[in-house]
């Protein structure tokens, strides 16, 4: 941890690089980091509140807030997994902690997540969704979501170096997890006898404390908060352990 703190300036540069490189040489440049999620959300909003004419407009807000977290999670995990191979040449030359690469991938995801909150608030205003002080809880939910995602990314990054098919497997698992997580459907739609499957899904509690304050306008209960924090800390512990056990071997296999 203390060594990672020494590299804080590097993290800033790496995240800035990821954000600017994506849209460099485009006409609108950095504006795209806001426009892209806004356009994406606009489409979803129109589809779910207009075309499908589901009962309430707030259903679109439910889906949107869920997707924001999900996009952050999958984007960060996927780029973390390939981050070591992508920086192979660097890893074999510079004695930096190898955790820098998956962590900066997650931090770039985090930056995109935080930026996309802006367009989300805009949609809340446009749709007339009630907004309360519960939104002030979002920073805490985002930190917990980041810790969880960083843990998963740290655990998978070295595994993807040792076994090439981990990337493929995780992609499939993420797809499955997407349907097992109540993002597009409310959990109340799930038949009673299947809810345990949904409840076993570790992503659920972490998503819930982010979506609750936006969609329900409620600060999460102590139980949901504890569940999310527990899941996040377990993921982080697993990630740190995998890294400690395998970090030295990465240079041999990459």
């Amino acid at each position, binding site marked *: 941890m203390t060594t990672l703190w*020494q*590299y804080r*300036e*590097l993290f800033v*540069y*790496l995240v800035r*690089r990821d954000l600017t*490189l994506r849209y*460099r*040489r485009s006409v609108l440049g950095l504006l795209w980091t806001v426009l892209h999620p806004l356009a994406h959300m606009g489409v979803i909003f129109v589809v779910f509140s207009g075309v499908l004419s589901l009962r309430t407009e707030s259903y679109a807000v439910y889906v949107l807030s869920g997707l924001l977290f999900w996009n952050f999670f999958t984007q960060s995990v996927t780029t973390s997994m390939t981050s070591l191979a992508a920086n192979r*040449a*660097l*890893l*074999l*030359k*510079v*004695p*930096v902690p190898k955790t820098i690469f998956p962590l900066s991938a997650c931090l770039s995801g985090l930056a995109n997540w935080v930026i996309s909150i802006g367009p989300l608030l805009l949609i809340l205003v446009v749709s007339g969704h009630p907004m309360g002080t519960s939104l002030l809880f979002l920073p805490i939910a985002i930190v917990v979501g980041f810790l969880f995602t960083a843990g998963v990314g740290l655990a998978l990054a070295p595994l993807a170096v040792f*076994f*090439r*098919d*981990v990337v493929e*497997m995780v992609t499939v698992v993420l797809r499955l997890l997407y349907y097992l997580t109540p993002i597009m459907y409310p959990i109340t739609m799930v038949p009673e006898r299947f809810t345990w499957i949904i409840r076993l899904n570790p992503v659920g509690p972490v998503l819930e404390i982010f979506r609750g304050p936006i969609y329900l306008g409620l600060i999460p209960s102590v139980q949901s908060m504890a569940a999310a924090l527990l899941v996040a800390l377990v993921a982080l512990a697993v990630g740190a352990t995998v890294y400690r056990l395998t970090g*030295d071997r990465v*240079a*041999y296999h990459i």
Partner: protein
Amino acid sequence: MGPVRINLEGVSVRYRLSTHRIHSLKEWLISCLGGGLSYRDLWALRDVSMSVRAGETLGVIGPNGAGKSTLLRVVGEVLRPTTGRVRIAGRVAPILSLGAGFSGDLTGVENVYINALLLGRTRSEIDSSIDGIVDFAGLAEFIDSPAHTYSTGMMARLGFAIATAWAPEVLILDEVLSVGDAHHVERCRARIESLQAAGSTVLMASHSRHAILANCRRCIWLDHGTVVMDGPAEETLEAYHATVATCLGADRPRPSAPPGGLRFSG
């Protein structure tokens, strides 16, 4: 002579190559269940011991696959040896090139910041040295252009300028002087000399007899992961080139090749 900067004691590096190539988790599980994995061991370094002092420039020579890059990785603290002990006093600066550390889409300045931060420098240190770095690399007019517009030589100059900007305790040069033009090579030699005078230890791997003779007084010759010779640069080079000549003359494998003749490349 100054204090010992690099100290290796009985350092060996073993790469395990599975006899049937295993790249996937599935294949690994199958082979584990089906009677265990069989490996072939490849010793990229075998019981290497050496010390290099402050102010010394050590050349590393040997054929492809002799273990030169592995040795530089061990000294650069990016590869922990399988057995043996490595002690490095101070900061190590490797030279970065395109592919390692340089992003083609970023400008020269942005690349300088990222690379120097990777080498453990702080932003304020870079702020105050950036002009000197750009100047040494001779890239003043190009420094705000994206790095993919640079030639290989320009990139090499920038990498060298960054790595040497703060007089690192240990400088690692892996065949990087060979891409510059004569003018740059001479400036590099001068800078290496002044670093040496300031107490830096330089480790340089090269196939260029000229580069070794111009920069190093001491040189080690590696073959199949072991140190064949460690001595004054002229003598080591002479002995090495003598065996190359014998091999060519007699048209047979190198004398020190072990049975099986497996070599490590990279």
